[in-house]
């Protein structure tokens, strides 16, 4: 049952082969048994999960089940959950019990999905390795010496280790796609504005977007369908009808199901900086796509390399302002001893924030300062427009873009601890997608020489989530990479 897909779980629940309480208990027990090795969860909400499962069982018995009724899941601890600790991986919020639910949380609650708990993450979603969490690093289920990726490392590790069938995440510069790649699962970040940011603790508002993790594209489609929809409480939420992404996958398998699909291969993504084993797996996956009927065409994203400097100006600028509310006045951590007001702010924030968060706040404060704003912030916004234009030009020649999600497989814990810039560079293939606001997906496509998963990234035009999920689903119907499990989930 722990390896079952969501449609299989749905059938089992509806046929009363298993109750939602039993299913929740199964995963809760797995978390109890295995999470000490992984540290994927910050909070496990057994009581809340079982209460919700009992309600779900009643609903199922009444024949009123939706696609996710009774299905357990885990929320990244960036989403506010009413009555449940919501830390964002930070000491600053280590005592914060949210009085309200994030939009995503309330949507999933309303469908009857069961929240098992809150997953570990890089502090305030700043990081690519999940090592910046106040609650300690998450271990990669494939190898406990390796990082799971970040910032949604806990969610990715939980799904890969089958501590939860599916999980929510957020992606500001690759924080869903990169950990999905490192943990060998599927993850999708939709078009900016598709998932409401209300109740999702902000890192960089113009880039943050909720996303979904699952073992397969199909599971991601089911979860994402339940997370999307217009929310008037988020001014950047897009007012468009909700889509059923899973319905689009229902077409029967065929020999060449992707006949006519044009896949663009950005010259810049394949030029350099990709490890040999990653390149081999990605190129084999692209060959598989050709076998499924797709054609490939070389495209160019000439400004893609500018995504790193642009991102590391815009994201810190926004975070320096977004995190100002954590001042010790109304909630969260406050220094125990302080002199005057300035001293309270200083000590509270010095104690409450970790090194990476402080680094980005300082960078952001600097780039917004009088006299530097034009040279940094406005310039970065110009680059952002150029990057978005590059994608639009490339998408004139193809239906979607494919390439590696990351330049390497998961690195060793602690390996980049003293070299933040090296870690920033590892996001080279994912950042540009957030800057352009496009949807992106990562799916497993093989293993590196170290036995760690490799991810293939698919990028599409605005609102092409269904196309990305379908392309991944057809690949997964023809391959078994997405069914491979680490030993911990054997």
């Amino acid at each position, binding site marked *: 049952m722990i390896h079952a897909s969501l449609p299989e779980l749905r059938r089992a629940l509806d046929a009363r082969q298993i109750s939602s309480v039993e299913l929740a208990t199964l995963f809760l027990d797995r978390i109890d048994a295995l999470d000490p090795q992984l540290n994927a969860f910050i909070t496990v909400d057994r009581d809340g999960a079982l209460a919700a499962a009992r309600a779900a069982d009643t609903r199922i018995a009444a024949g009123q089940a939706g696609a996710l009724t009774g299905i357990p899941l885990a929320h990244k601890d960036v*989403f*506010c959950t009413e009555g449940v600790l*919501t830390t*964002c991986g930070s000491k600053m*919020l280590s005592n*914060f019990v*949210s*009085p*309200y639910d*994030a939009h995503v949380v309330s949507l999933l609650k309303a469908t009857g999905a069961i929240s098992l708990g809150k997953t570990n993450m890089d502090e305030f979603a700043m990081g690519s390795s999940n090592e910046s969490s106040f609650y300690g690093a998450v271990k990669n289920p494939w190898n406990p010496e390796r990082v799971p990726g970040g910032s949604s490392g806990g969610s990715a590790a939980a799904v890969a280790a089958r501590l939860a069938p599916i999980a929510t995440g957020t992606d500001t510069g690759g924080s869903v796609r990169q950990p999905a790649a490192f943990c060998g699962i599927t993850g999708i970040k939709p078009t900016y504005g598709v998932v409401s*940011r*209300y*109740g*999702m*603790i*902000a890192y*960089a*508002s*113009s880039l943050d977007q909720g996303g979904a993790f699952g073992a397969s594209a199909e599971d991601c489609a089911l979860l994402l369908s339940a997370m999307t929809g217009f929310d*008037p*409480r*988020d*001014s*950047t939420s897009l007012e468009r009808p909700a889509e059923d992404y899973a319905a689009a996958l229902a077409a029967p398998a065929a020999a060449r199901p992707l006949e006519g699909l044009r896949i663009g291969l950005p010259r810049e993504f394949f030029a350099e900086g990709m490890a040999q084993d990653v390149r081999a797996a990605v190129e084999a996956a692209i060959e598989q796509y050709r076998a499924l009927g797709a054609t490939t065409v070389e495209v160019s994203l000439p400004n893609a390399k500018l995504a790193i400097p642009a991102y590391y100006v815009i994201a810190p*600028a*926004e975070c*320096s*302002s977004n*995190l*100002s*509310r*954590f*001042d010790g*006045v*109304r*909630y969260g951590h406050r220094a125990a001893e302080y002199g005057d*007001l300035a001293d309270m*702010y200083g000590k509270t924030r010095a104690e409450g924030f970790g090194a990476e968060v402080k680094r980005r706040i300082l960078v952001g*404060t600097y780039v*917004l*300062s*009088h006299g530097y*704003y034009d040279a940094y*912030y406005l310039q970065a916004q110009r680059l952002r427009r150029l990057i978005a234009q590059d994608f639009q030009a490339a998408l004139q020649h193809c239906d979607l873009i494919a390439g590696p999600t990351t330049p390497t497989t998961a690195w060793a814990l602690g390996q980049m601890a003293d070299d933040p810039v090296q870690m920033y560079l590892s996001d080279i293939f994912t950042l540009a997608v957030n800057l352009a606001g496009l949807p992106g997906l990562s799916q497993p496509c093989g293993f590196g020489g170290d036995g760690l998963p490799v991810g293939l990234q698919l990028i599409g035009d605005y609102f092409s989530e269904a196309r990305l999920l379908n392309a991944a689903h057809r690949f997964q119907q023809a391959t078994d990479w997405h069914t491979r499990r680490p030993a911990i989930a054997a």
Partner: protein
Amino acid sequence: MSRTDWEVVIGLEVHAQLNTASKIFSGASTAFGAEPNVQASAVDIALPGVLPVLNRGAVERAIRFGLAIGAHVAEKSVFARKNYFYPDLPKGYQISQMDLPVVQGGAITIRVGEGEQAYEKTVRLTRAHLEEDAGKSLHEDFHGMTGIDLNRAGTPLLEIVSEPDMRSSAEAVAYARSLHALVRWIDICDGNMQEGSFRCDANVSVRRKGATEFGTRREIKNLNSFRFLQQAIDFEVQWQIDTLEDGGRVQQATVLFDPDSGETRMMRSKEDAHDYRYFPDPDLLPLVVSPDWKARVQAGMPELPGAMKARFMDEWGLSAYDATTLTASKEVADFYQATVTAAGTALAKPCANWIMGDLAARLNKAELDIAASPVSAAQLAGLVTRIADNTISNAIGKKVFEALWNGEGASADEVIDKQGLKQVTDSGAIEAMIDEVLAANQKSVDEFRAGKEKAFNALVGQVMKASKGKASPAQVNELLKKKLG
């Protein structure tokens, strides 16, 4: 050097609290005077994860203001974050507008001074932008600690910035008063200065007469009455002149006015000024005001004071002075129009006289606003009508007015009836009274006959007295002349 060698330059920044029912970025109530923090929603206290949603009612009020002052209402404007730390600023930034404000330019005509000295002047506006208010820090009653009340946090403000066009404290006060009247006129702000709904900051500098460059300015913060505005500017101007004449220099600074001492004192110098690190708020889309929206707001605009003043002069024959006085505030104008509507436009002038004369004096004495006048517009119209149709004399009219003020009757007619004040027009009755007066005042009669005109007036007075004021003075005159002639 003396004060007359210096020119004063003043620009004002006014924060007008917009009278929306809910806050600018949340659904919490804006009502004044609630228990601390009961009107602070999750958005207002800046819980993690909450987001602002713009209140279109606040935007509509900004558009009304822009249209009222002939400004450019920007089709696209941008909300920006003004970053600074303070305990009553929950997000650590204020959402405001910086580079692209919603209202750009515009002008207001002000009338300065009284009587012969009075003159009109046009003050140009730089801009008006939307922003949210902060909460309040309460330093008393907390035993060395500070209390935070976030009820006011997120209240919508329109910050109205003038050009440095004013040249005296009198002009500054006249401008502030005009602006105050206007925002109430177009119903975007209640104008309650005690509650902080209308607050002024004054940028003041002085320069030698004839100089082309402005002097260094100091900004006086948070003046919440017209009297303080005047006092603060006067003190500040004198301080700057004294400083310069003593060979000193004025440094750019922000100062506070202490109403108790009547002095301004330094709050922070330019060196201590914050770097607010403004940048466009990524949580809010650019504010788009479509031509259609603008047109709809335009269609709902009331007649503005300038247009109304012109109409009073052109159609109702009022003088410029009367028309200006009667359009000085929405309440006065409403009262006047209601009075004329009830009395008929032929009586527009006597209605004006009554409102600016007896009613204004009586309200002033009782310290009442015209909206709270015990004599209603309909009652006043009834009174003016009865004087005009000679039912009562003007003198009796004052009696009737007083009776209405004291609630002694529901209408002028009722008072006239009840108190028997109807003018006596029966010439027989008046002649009888004249005969009695002549008989009793032989001395005056003799004096008149001897050529003393004054004696005639004394006799008229006696007859009026005998009639208890109810006789028509004109009729008494006429009949008395006949009798004596």
